[in-house]
């Protein structure tokens, strides 16, 4: 492991290092610069925070506002009259609880499936050179390029002949496959950054290939898997069209399809819609908080071993 690190360091230092003065003074200057820099980064971070958070803030604000104020002409940037009516109304709609159930079943299965298939496939293309590897990578790209809306009808007909309509597994398979290429790429990026020697030395120490994978590779891949799983979960969780078209029974609708129920021919219940989407977003945020720790864990373990 250490060999690769030094190899890279010298590569980095070779080009830039030539013109630099003796190394001694550098650390002090480095420390001195660090403090003011952090303030700059913090300010930048706060600006980014405000920009990213404002629409979210507006969503939450609207969810707590009575319907008549949501699109009023003199909007206040701050909470005015706070009401929980929207949340009550949203949770009292029919099919709310079944929608939570469907979303959980579908998304958890699809994400787990994609992570397992994705990790082993990423390992294969990141570690082995085999005939058909390029073709496989090409397939992954092609799948990403295909516009799902344009293929809605052919995919629907395909699912129909597989008997997947109105079944959880029909939606699960579609989600799994649509997030799989990304997951494979993402995890592959991490696989190729893990030095091969590390894995091999683990095997020398008496680990089987599988053990080597779980004990050595997996912790190093964790940040990648975590990022891929967040991406997959959010993509699946927020998908609407396929879930709506494939599922026919109202009690099998997912949360995003359920959200659309706030729009009728007689107008949109924006308060209910906003409250509903706050509720829908909560599981994603919780999932992220769990995974975030794993990401951090993967980070530290990587650092220790590196």
């Amino acid at each position: 492991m250490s060999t690769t690190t030094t190899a890279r360091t010298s590569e980095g230092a070779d080009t830039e290092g030539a013109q630099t003065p003796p190394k001694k003074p550098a650390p002090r200057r480095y420390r001195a610069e660090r403090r003011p820099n952090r303030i700059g980064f913090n300010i930048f971070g706060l600006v980014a925070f405000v920009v990213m958070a404002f629409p979210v803030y507006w969503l939450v604000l609207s969810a707590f506002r009575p319907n008549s104020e949501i699109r009023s002409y003199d909007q206040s940037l701050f909470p005015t009259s706070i009401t929980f009516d929207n949340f009550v109304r949203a949770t009292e709609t029919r099919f709310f609880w079944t929608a939570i159930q469907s979303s959980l079943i579908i998304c958890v299965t699809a994400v787990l499936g994609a992570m397992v298939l994705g990790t082993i496939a990423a390992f294969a293309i990141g570690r082995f050179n085999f005939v058909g590897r390029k073709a496989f990578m090409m397939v992954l790209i092609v799948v990403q390029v295909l516009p799902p809306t344009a293929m809605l009808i052919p995919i629907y007909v395909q699912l129909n002949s597989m008997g997947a309509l109105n079944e959880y597994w029909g939606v699960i398979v579609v989600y799994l496959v649509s997030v799989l290429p990304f997951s494979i790429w993402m995890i592959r990026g991490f696989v190729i950054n893990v030095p091969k020697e590390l894995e091999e030395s683990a095997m020398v120490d008496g680990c089987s290939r599988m053990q080597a994978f779980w004990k050595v590779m997996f912790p190093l891949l964790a940040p990648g898997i975590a990022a891929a799983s967040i991406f997959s979960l959010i993509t699946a969780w927020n998908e609407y069209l396929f879930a709506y078209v494939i599922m026919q029974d109202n009690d099998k609708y997912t949360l995003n399809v359920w959200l659309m129920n706030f729009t009728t021919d007689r107008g949109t219940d924006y308060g209910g819609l906003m409250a509903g989407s706050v509720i829908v977003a909560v599981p994603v945020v919780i999932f992220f908080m769990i995974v975030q720790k794993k990401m951090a864990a993967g980070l530290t373990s990587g650092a220790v071993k590196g």
Partner: protein
Amino acid sequence: MRRKLTATIGSMAMLATLAACGGSGSDNSSKDPADRDDTLTVWLMNDAESTWPELVKDVNAQFKKKYPKVNVKVQFQQWGDKAKKLDTALGGSKFPDVVELGNTETMTYILNGALAEIDEKKYDNSDTWIQGLKDTCTFEGQMYCVPYYAGARVAVMNTEMFEKSTGSKELPETEDDLKKALKKVEQEYGSDRAFSALYLPGKYWYAAMSYVAGYGGQIAEFDEGAKEWKGSLSKPEARKGIQHYVDLVKDWNNADKTKDEQDHANVMANGKAAVIYGNGWEAESVVKGESGNPKMEGKVGIAGMPGPNGKPLPSFIGGSDLAVIEKSNVKDLGEEWISLFTSEKSMKVLSAKNILPNNTKQLEPLQKDPKTAPIANAVPDAWFTPIAPGWTAVEKQLVLENMLLEIVRGGSVESATKKADAKINELINTEA
């Protein structure tokens, strides 16, 4: 699993026959009703779920009495993507047996052979079905769907504002008097720059075409000789109507003039408009529910909208129809369910909610009730969009909205209507 997959691929090779397979099955209609054990799938729009769920329940209970073993599945659909879902579902083997269709959508499905013929005699009051709805179900003398409910447009007004500025809660009956009243309202409330005495958004084509109809014009006409439809917006009477509408927009709308009507109830709920032109039920949405403002309670009324030449403005007749899918293998059950759902008794439930029933017989009492008279009275003189094969395409490609937008932004009526006619001629005769 693997075998299933291989089998799947084999069967997919026969894609073309696949869709036809869905409808096959033994003919059960001769069986005793008590022994029927089919499944009947009904797609209703979610309005039924939000506004008249008890009717759906009640009809299902009635149906259950006759067919105790039939499983009725009512699935509520969403306006936004219903067409996409239905179009796709009809290509597979899991499609509904009964569907609700907006009355401007039916023609597409009729022309493409998706809907089954129905027998008028099986339905209550079919002899007095509202013509505007009946027409949308008829093709070459044959009926393909059943009128469900109707909707007409009226003036929705803020009575408090009118009373305060003109001394009367009533909307004047002629346009000239209306304009005088609007002047007074504007004087009273005009200090608010976002306030419009009459709020007509520029892209509101249902309203603009009502003025065209008021001058005796039409969107398109059927040429008996050439056996085809032709856009007629550039005819003088149509142009007069369009000019009239655009003038009203420019004179009275002080907000963004280039919007469509999606938001107009919200404008009124915010007290930024004294009169809007909308569906009868929108008076209620100003106060309650979605974008309503509870402070408007008791201040909103409806009235017939005065039109050009001292006559009332002809309204567009909207509404929904119910149809049986041609491929369904329980067509008879579908018809029976529809006949219960549109029975005289069911229509009474709708009327009680100020929804216009599907027939003129039950419309009459509504015409006498001052609360519903303006909407009910708008039905007899109402106009409808051309019942032409390509009309849906004209509507979906926003031909009329884009024309109005061009004029509101300063383009000439002449060139805009000419362009619109050309576009209509291109689309209207081909099946969409």
